[in-house]
C-alpha cells in the first residue's frame, strides 16, 4: 500500500486563490485616495468601480494594503469626497 504522503511525480501549474497574490500592491501607489467622510453619500459608486476590489461595500473603506492608486474612485465620486494625494516617499 502506498503512503498518502508519497510524492506522485506530479507537479504542475496549479495555483491556489489568495488575497495579495502579487504581494502588497499598495506599494505601487503614487497617489493615494483619501476619503472625506463628511462629503460621502454612500452611493457605492467607488465600491462598484474599483478594479481591484479594495473598497468595501459596507462603509466604503479603502484597503491601502492593496489599493494601486488608479484614481478611478476619485474621478467617479459624484460628491468629490475622494481626493488623490501624492504619497510621501518612505
Amino acid at each position, binding site marked *: 500500500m502506498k503512503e498518502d504522503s508519497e510524492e506522485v511525480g506530479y507537479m504542475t501549474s*496549479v495555483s491556489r486563490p*489568495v488575497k495579495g497574490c502579487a504581494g502588497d500592491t499598495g506599494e505601487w501607489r503614487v497617489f493615494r485616495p483619501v476619503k472625506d467622510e463628511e462629503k460621502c453619500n454612500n452611493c457605492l459608486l467607488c465600491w462598484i468601480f474599483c478594479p481591484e476590489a479594495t473598497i468595501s461595500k459596507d462603509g466604503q473603506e479603502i484597503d491601502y494594503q492593496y489599493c494601486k492608486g*488608479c484614481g*478611478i474612485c476619485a*474621478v467617479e465620486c459624484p460628491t468629490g469626497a475622494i481626493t488623490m494625494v501624492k504619497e510621501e516617499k518612505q
Partner: protein
Amino acid sequence: MVSFKDLPEEELFLAGSTACQGCPSSLALRIAFKALGSNTILIVVASCTSVLQGSYPLSAINLPLMNVAFATGGASASGVAAGVKALVKRGELAEEPTVLVWAGDGGTYDIGIQSLSGAAERETDFIYVCYNNEMYSNTGTQRSGATPLGAWTTTTPGGKVQHRKDIAQIMIAHRIPYVATASLAYPLDFYQKMQKAKGIRGTKYIEMLAPCPPGWKFPSAQMIEVSRLAVQSGMWLLYENEDGETRFTGGTKRIIEGKVKKKPVKDYLEMQGRFRQVLASPEGQEAEDLLEEQVSDSIRRLHGWVPEYI
C-alpha cells in the same frame, strides 16, 4: 430595477492581483463574478487575464479556473460543458455550474473565431465574454481585427487604415439565444446582462469594451470616463439581442430615443493618445468623418434607420 445595493458583497476576484492600475478586465471580472456567483467554472483564453490573475503558486481568482491556449475558448467550453454533463449523469455534481469563457479581442475576433463559431453552432451551454481592448494589449499593443480605423498600435504606427469587424453581429448570425454588448461605465447594465445570460440555455455572447489605459494612452483614473464617452459618442453601442430581436440599452438607448444628444466622435478620440497622431495629420478630418459615418452605419444596421436628431 436592480440597484448597486443588490449586488453581492462577496468578492471572487481577490485584491492584490498583478493587473495594471485601472485595468478594465479586472473590473469586468469582478462584476461578472457578482452576477454569476461561485458555482461557475472559468476558462481564461490567453490574454492579459492570463497574467493579471497572478502567477504560480498563487491566484487572484477564487473560482475553478482553467487557462487555455489562444485559439481554444469555444472548444474548451464545449469540453467542460460535456464533462459537467457526464459528472451530473454520474451523480457527482448536484447542480450544473455556469461555464464562463473570458477572452480578449485577439482571442475572439482573430485567432479564436473558428473555435467560438464552432461552439455556438454546437449550441454549447456557456457564456462567452469578450473583453475588447481593441488591440493585443498583452503582447504590447499590436493591431487586432477589433482595432478601430485611425488608431495607433505598434503594428499600425501610422494609424490603422481599415475599420474593425463587427463580431457581435457575426454571433447574432449564428442565431444563438443571447448576444449583448456592455460598457464598464454602465455596470448595472452589464450585471443584468450577465444575470440574464446565466438564466438562458445555449451559447451566450457578451462583449465588453475594455479601454486599456497604457494601450490607449490615457491616465488610469479616466478608464470609466473613456468607457462612458465611447457610448456617448456612439463609438460603442449598447444593446442586447434576444432570439433575433435587438434592443438598445443604457446610454445608447437614451441617444436613440433622443433623450440625450450624441456627442461627437472627436471628443472620444481626443481623450486618447492612440488617435493623437492621426488627428494631427492631414488625413485627421477624413478619419474623423469616416468614424462618424461608421457610427451612423452601425446604428442603421441595428435600428433600420438613423434618427435625424443623431
